[in-house]
């Protein structure tokens, strides 16, 4: 099967072209660099089957980040290149185009965002451009699906160019100058009122209050709507329908004994306790579906909205100065925000940072001080009943930790911390269908990942209790736990489970009858001491074994230190 590589600069709508060509709806996003994880798909053009590869966006073939290295590698792999060009920024997009064509790969150029050139007063002579480049050029408007058929029909005509030779950088810019002069006419245009309004979101005086308001409203939305879904949808389903049914069903073939307890714990129809029973079919399903899923859905809806509108790069600009003090720069806000949803995509997104130092700092800070949505939902679930105060203590401690640790890492980690250099795309109207699909894909991803692990976790805990392993572990670790941090011996089970999944681990704190102080300390330790297994695997892959060991060492030292300090502050000696 022949391979088609789809290439282009960031923000040219490449992913939309991809999803149009493959029919599979691949998510396209407004943030430069989010398609670092490349996507493949199959497509049939004129009876022939092709493999289509969505290559990460890159400005040139001389890579400046890990993502762009991947792009270069994938160009060499492909048989045919579809070069997606932003027709509204033809000049700078032509640089990559000339580089690709200069490598004598059979190429077709898609002039995307064609409809917008008309609004912007840009005239491009497609035929002349085709002649100058000596490869097929097709105007497209991928969002509306226009020009895609023609693009596909031209795949057979892709050929190496005879007019464009490999050249030096200076020659290339000269060539681009000549081409632009011949094919493009720009009519003068004034700054529109909408552009002026958009500018207020990056000016510090207006931008910072708007950013604070946006973040507050986002969190308010997640909490209020998430709780509403739990109260009016999930709880009634679990308590009125699912609960009585499952208890009855299990009782009908196994009224008591080991199997009964593993499946539904000590639950009876009258005393249904989804949190404390710790059965595979009670707690194992209640935690992911009822307590966590509603917040995951609302979180990803809001994140996708901010992403698609194009707000995130502006947030990156506003937080840049602060993040510099931590050895990062503004772009690091993206992995951080993603980490609040789930640390796994957060760790993957650290690839948008340019240097190893920044990737290490961003990943380590996230793993230690950014609780994922599953964790946050559980923290709210078990601490909320004692008042907001305890929740605020947990998050403030993590924030202070994030800042102090960042300052420290900036000093001790060797390497460069380059500055922010980021395109700020214009605001775009989000497409509701894409938004819902994106939310659904991510929520589904959460379920596919979480449910098996939570159920496995509950199962392991049951086995540990049955075989008395818990008692042994409790005795072994009690000096550290009880003496140093002031937690009951039983908390060790939760800490062990935290290696697997944090949400279920926090759920296990509930039966231990702890004071709010002890619960608060436990939540902080659970958040910081080690990432869950899924995050650990991804970090290992991204950082390599040496840096991961360093990060892990840091985590253990830090969570112990913070545990002891918090114990002294909250409980005393």
């Amino acid at each position, binding site marked *: 099967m022949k391979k088609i590589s789809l290439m282009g*600069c960031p923000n040219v709508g490449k992913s939309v072209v991809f999803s149009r060509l493959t029919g599979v709806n691949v998510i396209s996003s407004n943030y430069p660099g989010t398609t670092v994880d490349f996507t493949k798909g199959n497509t049939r053009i004129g009876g022939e089957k092709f493999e289509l590869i969505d290559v990460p966006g890159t*400005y*040139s073939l*001389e890579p*400046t980040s890990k993502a762009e290295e991947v792009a270069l590698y994938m160009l060499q792999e492909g048989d045919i290149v579809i070069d997606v060009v932003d027709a*509204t*920024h033809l*000049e*700078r997009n032509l*640089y*990559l185009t000339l580089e690709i064509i200069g490598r004598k790969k059979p190429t077709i150029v898609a002039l995307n965002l064609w409809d917008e050139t008309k609004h*912007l007063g840009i005239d491009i002579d497609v035929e002349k451009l085709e002649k100058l480049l000596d490869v097929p050029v097709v105007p497209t408007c991928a969002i509306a699906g226009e020009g895609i058929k023609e693009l596909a029909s031209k795949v057979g005509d892709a050929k190496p160019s005879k007019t464009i030779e490999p050249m030096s*950088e200076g020659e290339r*810019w000269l060539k681009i100058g000549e081409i632009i002069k011949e094919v493009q006419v720009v009519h003068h245009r004034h700054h529109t009122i909408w552009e002026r309004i958009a*500018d207020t979101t*990056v*000016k*510090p005086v207006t*931008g910072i209050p708007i950013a604070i308001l946006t973040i507050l409203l986002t969190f308010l939305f997640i909490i209020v709507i998430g709780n509403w879904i739990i109260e009016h949808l999930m709880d009634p389903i679990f308590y009125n329908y699912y609960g009585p049914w499952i208890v009855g069903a299990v009782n009908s073939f196994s009224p008591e004994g080991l199997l009964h307890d593993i499946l539904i714990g000590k639950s009876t129809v009258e005393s249904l306790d989804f949190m404390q029973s710790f059965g595979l079919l009670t707690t194992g399903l209640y935690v992911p579906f009822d307590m966590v899923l509603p917040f995951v859905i609302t979180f990803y809806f809001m994140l996708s909205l901010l992403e698609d509108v194009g707000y995130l*790069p502006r947030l*990156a*600009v*506003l937080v*840049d*100065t602060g993040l510099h003090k931590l050895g990062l*720069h*503004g772009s690091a806000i993206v992995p951080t925000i993603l980490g609040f949803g789930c640390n796994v995509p957060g760790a993957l997104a650290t690839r948008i940072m340019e240097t190893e130092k920044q990737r290490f700092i961003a990943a380590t800070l996230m793993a230690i001080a950014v609780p994922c949505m599953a964790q946050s939902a559980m923290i709210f679930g078990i601490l909320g009943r004692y008042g907001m105060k305890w929740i605020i203590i947990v998050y403030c401690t993590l924030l202070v930790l994030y800042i102090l640790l960042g300052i420290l890492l900036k000093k001790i980690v060797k390497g460069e911390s*380059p*500055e*922010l*250099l*980021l*395109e*700020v*795309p*214009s605001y775009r109207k989000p497409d509701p269908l894409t938004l819902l699909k994106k939310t659904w894909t991510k929520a589904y991803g959460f379920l596919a990942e979480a449910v098996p692990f939570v159920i496995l976790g509950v199962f392991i805990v049951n086995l540990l209790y049955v075989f008395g392993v818990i008692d042994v572990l409790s005795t072994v670790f009690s000096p550290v736990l009880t003496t140093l941090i002031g937690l009951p011996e039983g908390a060790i089970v939760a800490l062990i489970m935290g290696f697997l999944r944090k949400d279920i681990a926090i759920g296990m704190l509930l039966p231990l009858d702890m004071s709010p102080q002890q619960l608060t300390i436990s939540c902080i330790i659970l958040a910081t001491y080690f990432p869950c297994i899924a995050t650990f695997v991804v970090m290992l892959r991204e950082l390599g074994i040496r840096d991961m060991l360093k990060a892990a060492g840091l985590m253990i030292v830090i969570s112990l230190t913070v545990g002891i300090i918090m114990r002294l502050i909250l409980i005393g000696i």
Partner: protein
Amino acid sequence: MELLSDMKPDRKAVPLSTLFPGERGKIISLGHGAGIQRHLRTMGLMEGKIITVIAAQPARGPFVIGVEGTQIAIGRGMVRRILIQKI
């Protein structure tokens, strides 16, 4: 372009960082290593282009500059090394 003709030929090149939001200038030189220069050009920041400063973040934070309908956020260190002629 009529804008180029308003410029006095004897205007000296100054660092981009000396411009205030709302001010405009023509890029004279990018003043970095070859790698960063190339990256800046592929983002649209080229010698001869007219740029507008849209925002300057406080405490030596990044600039947001507009060039031909694109906005680019760029750290203050780089901003200092880009030389422009005020318009």
